């Protein structure tokens, strides 16, 4: 029993390290979601107004929706290149549980997108006249919310990876599933500006993370088995 737990853990860390290494070797792909995040956020002051009150009013929604879209556009990288060169099939055939392998890949994806988005979000928030003392709440919501986005997103990518033009379909599949996270994340940031208690939303985001962490890898591996058949 202990042996199988150990081997699953080894599978997880091996996949995680491999994907991180691959991401680091493709620097430009690593930067792209971040650049997208920065550009989309800076479009709002350009299109709306530079008035700091207006900017502050839209800041939580803008930051959250941009982070969500940046994550969504980066999702393909979880399985796409592995699917193209055939290594995904080898991973599915391996002796280790597929859900553990999926979890390793999703964790690596989050570290190379969601985590980085969270790290640069304070700078963007400041540019939207966001009060510096409330940055903590923004970071917490993104830290709790973006892993859930990667986990739910992995189901969508697994379902569409076999299709040549999966991009817009992927958006149609997963954006409705992202709505609860957007609601709790953006409203927590919004309420923190008015100095209200946001513990409730943070707990709910954490609950959604726990739920998707336990269920999404199984759905993703089932989806991979179907599309790779």
């Amino acid at each position, binding site marked *: 029993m202990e042996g199988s737990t150990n081997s699953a853990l080894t599978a997880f860390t091996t996949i995680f390290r491999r994907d991180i290494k691959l991401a680091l070797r493709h620097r430009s792909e690593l930067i792209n979601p971040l650049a997208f995040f920065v550009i989309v956020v800076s479009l709002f002051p350009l299109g709306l107004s530079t008035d700091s009150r207006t900017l502050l009013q839209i800041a939580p929604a803008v930051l959250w929706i941009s982070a969500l879209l940046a994550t969504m556009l980066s999702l393909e990288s979880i399985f796409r290149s592995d699917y193209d060169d055939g290594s995904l099939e080898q991973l599915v055939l391996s002796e280790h549980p597929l859900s553990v392998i999926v979890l390793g890949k999703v964790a690596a994806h989050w570290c190379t997108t969601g985590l980085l988005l969270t790290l640069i979000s304070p700078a963007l928030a400041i540019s939207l006249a966001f009060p510096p003392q409330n940055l903590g709440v923004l970071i917490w919501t993104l830290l709790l919310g973006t892993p859930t986005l990667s986990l739910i997103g992995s189901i969508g990518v697994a*379902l569409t990876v076999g299709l040549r033009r999966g991009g817009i379909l992927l958006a149609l*599949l997963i954006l*409705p599933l992202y709505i609860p996270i957007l609601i709790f994340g953006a409203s927590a940031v919004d309420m923190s500006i008015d100095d209200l208690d946001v513990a409730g939303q943070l707990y*709910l985001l954490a609950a959604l993370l726990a739920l998707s962490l336990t269920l999404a890898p199984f759905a993703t591996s089932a989806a991979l088995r179907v599309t790779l058949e």
Partner: protein
Amino acid sequence: MRIFQFFHRFASPREFFRIAGAMIPWFAAVTLVLLSVGLYLGLFVAPPDYQQGESYRIIFIHVPSAWMSLFVYMVMASAAAIGLIWRIKLAHVIAMSSAPIGASFTFLALVTGSLWGKPMWGAWWVWDARLTSELILLFLYLGVMALYAAFEERRTAQRAAGILAIVGVINVPIIHYSVMWWNTLHQGPTVTKFDAPSIHLSMLIPLLIMSVAFTLFYATVLLMRARWEVLEQEQRSKWVDEYLEQT
């Protein structure tokens, strides 16, 4: 044991095609009778509401279609789960034939809700919690239908869209409560309060008749669509050739 034998036989495409074909006229007839009775009682017999006047009568379409939109999603997800777990072809057919019907019910609930909203709230569309979660439900249906249409191979399409339907069914309550918590203007539930429904019996009876009629309508259309889908899926079998020669 005999009931298992019945289901086993019913699940074979050929038997399903035959039995469903025999059932459709009966289902359609009962649907028609119940729809006319329900509409007559609802539109002519039930008294006008003391606050909303005559305009509340859209409830007899709006509420059953909203109920059906959720019910059909549940049927679709359960059928998909049955199909994936026990590898029953017919269950996948039922699930995928349900999706467009469910989407239509959702669309009907949205349109009637918007028509009702105009005199009641003074706007065609408000971001009310229940209307919004109905809209998101429509997106979920569209996702399942789009994924089903995207694959060339029918079996892969059925199974992939089935997984999405099951993922969606876990999300439906989460979406519902998150949206509910986010904003609400909608009038509270008037029928499902168990102790004493806050709706008068003369309005409740047509409402219940209408929802039974809608359920039977769904069953009728589902059987028709599933029959067509089975025929297409089994087009290489001998019995399909025989059937097509006869007609």
